[in-house]
């Protein structure tokens, strides 16, 4: 049996769904093949890790609320966050027609959102534009303890995009490392105009996942 064939059966082997005599043939190959033995070890570890992933329970009153809103035909409205609600959802309204001139003042009021430490959460930024805008530069400055998922260790991200008239939404997958959080600053630039918003990210360590998984 070739490695490529064995590879297609490892999932069934781990799920105990491989019948004889195939199972014996696969095991015999693995016994003499370091590469396939390593693949088996990795896949087993991955499976165990996946099965041990925690499930964050729904928010209190979810069942009653969701049925009540369904009967009323209401979609859940994403709230503007106030205080330190644990919901890692935030909507920032930006009316681009009111952009600041260069050198404009920093934001006066700062909203807050909390993230559970070591656990990805989504923060949604919504930008409301009065008309189509091309080549808008959006820059995010992140606190040192917060990262965009997949961009480890990078605390400044910038990209150019076009905004459509109406609501433009950015769902930002964030993960908080150890630390206290800090300010996330979002800056939009279009031509000579600039608008800046800040959000305070608080890190909740109480529900933090262990940094090591017992395997």
């Amino acid at each position, binding site marked *: 049996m070739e490695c490529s064939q064995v590879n297609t059966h490892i999932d069934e082997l781990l799920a105990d769904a491989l019948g004889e005599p195939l199972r014996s043939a696969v095991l015999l190959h693995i016994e003499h093949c370091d590469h396939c033995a390593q693949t088996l*070890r*990795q896949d087993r570890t991955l499976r165990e890790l996946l099965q041990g992933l925690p499930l964050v329970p729904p928010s209190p009153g*979810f069942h009653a609320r969701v049925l009540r809103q369904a009967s009323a035909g209401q979609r*859940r409205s994403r709230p503007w966050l106030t205080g330190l609600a644990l919901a890692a959802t935030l909507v920032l309204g930006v009316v681009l027609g009111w952009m600041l001139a260069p050198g404009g003042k920093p934001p006066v009021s700062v909203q807050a959102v909390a993230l559970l430490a070591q656990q990805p959460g*989504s923060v949604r930024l919504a930008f409301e534009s009065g008309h189509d805008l091309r080549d808008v530069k959006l820059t995010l400055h992140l606190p040192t303890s917060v990262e965009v*998922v997949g961009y*480890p260790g990078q605390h400044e991200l*910038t990209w150019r995009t076009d905004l459509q008239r109406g609501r433009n*939404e950015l769902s930002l997958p964030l993960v908080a490392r150890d630390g206290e959080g800090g300010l996330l600053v979002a800056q939009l630039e279009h031509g000579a105009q600039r608008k800046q918003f800040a959000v305070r990210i608080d890190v909740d360590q109480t529900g933090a*996942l262990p940094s090591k998984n017992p395997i």
Partner: protein
Amino acid sequence: MYPHLDHLYRFAYRMTGTREDAEDLVQDLLVKLYPRQRELEAVEQLRPWLTRVLYRLGVDRARSQSRNPLALRQDAVGAEDSDVDPLERLPSHEPEPSAALERHWTQARLLEAMQQLSVEHRSVIALHMVEGYALNELEDLLQTPVGTLKSRLHRARAQLKALLQREPNQDHQRVNTRGQRKWNVVK
């Protein structure tokens, strides 16, 4: 539908990765189905049917978000249409002691890695490897041929392993420009 809410939330959470998005998705499903209660009464196996509708809703939502002008999406390492076998991207084929795996493969990192999968890949991982559905059950549940599911599973697993193999602060990011806005990362 009340008896199925926990199951639906659980799958929605595995698909989306956050409580808020999972609650939103279940809410959307219920709002959509509430006026069709008479039809639901005629469905023999309600749970798999609901799961299927939820899955379609989750996929549609993910695609819709990816079309948004500001959408943020990671490069999918081992994307479905890639010609390169994702397994070949693993850093090493040398045997690795389990202690070394333990050092890098943690729940927190796996959660992050899951977030970087496409919704289709995340769903098959969640339903097959976490919830224990057999692939032939998923063929009916997700209305997707077993061959496609196997391919997704293979690629998703390889992608997860590749992401977990990276050093925690290793900068290996690439950007998916297929229909997405490009991140220009400032060094």
